[in-house]
């Protein structure tokens, strides 16, 4: 799976305003609403479901990266977006570091395989320190989009 299979380009944010875990999740979910990927009426339910998932254990997987996510019946295919926080946000990460780079995923409840393949793609690409660093330093959403496209075209397609 490629980034372009699930990342909505119009929902990418290079400078999130939020400074809290809930705030960044809300901002990213709102970006998906603004991009027409999730219905406004589902926003609250999706944010609550993602926060509930975070209560089970932070999705801050280390290296300043988090993958907040949930299943939700309102989506028929996996949708996601990417956001960067300049200052980093306390996400109760596994390594304790603040998180700068966020991948938010909303997947249909009956497609656990797609969710796994998206996680696989994100984690495989992020093993590249340079890629990670460039994403965190991106100035505009379009820069992030280009970096993801580059990773898609050079990475191994799975």
């Amino acid at each position: 799976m490629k980034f372009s299979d699930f990342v909505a380009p119009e929902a990418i944010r290079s400078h999130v305003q939020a400074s809290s875990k809930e705030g960044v999740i809300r901002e990213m979910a709102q970006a998906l609403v603004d991009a027409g990927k999730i219905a406004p009426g589902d926003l609250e339910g999706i944010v609550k479901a993602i926060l509930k998932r975070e209560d089970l254990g932070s999705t801050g997987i280390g290296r300043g990266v988090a993958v907040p996510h949930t299943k939700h019946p309102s989506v028929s295919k996996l949708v996601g977006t990417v956001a960067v926080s300049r200052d980093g946000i306390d996400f109760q990460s596994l390594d304790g570091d603040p998180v700068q780079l966020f991948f938010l995923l909303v997947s249909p409840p009956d497609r656990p395989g797609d969710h796994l393949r998206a996680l696989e793609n994100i984690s495989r690409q992020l093993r590249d320190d340079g890629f990670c660093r460039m994403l965190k330093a991106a100035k505009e959403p379009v820069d992030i989009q280009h970096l993801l496209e580059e990773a898609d075209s050079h990475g191994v397609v799975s």
Partner: protein
Amino acid sequence: MAWSPDMNTESPEPLCDASGSLPEQTVSREVVVVNAAGLHARPADLLAREARKWRSRIELVNESQRADGKSILELLTLAAESGTRLVVEATGPDAREALEAIGGLFERRFNEHDDRQDS
């Protein structure tokens, strides 16, 4: 679907050498991902946390792909769906105990009680 003891490969009993340090041993066993959602972020987190408790090096092998058991990022690159068979390898002074603890996580389905059988 669980492992059988004869699948284990071990080096001989560890004995203290002249310097007093324990020689390294590698043990391995097969595990099966049985929870419906597969090895996603939460199981990978639980697995890496467990692996980090041990001094031994721990690796998970999915056919030709290997992942450091102590790294969530690496574990997620296995994209192991429900039904996938993996080999866990542990090398070090506490390899056997580590292997048992990690095998237990798979057997307990990472404490996920699936209400669906859809994968």
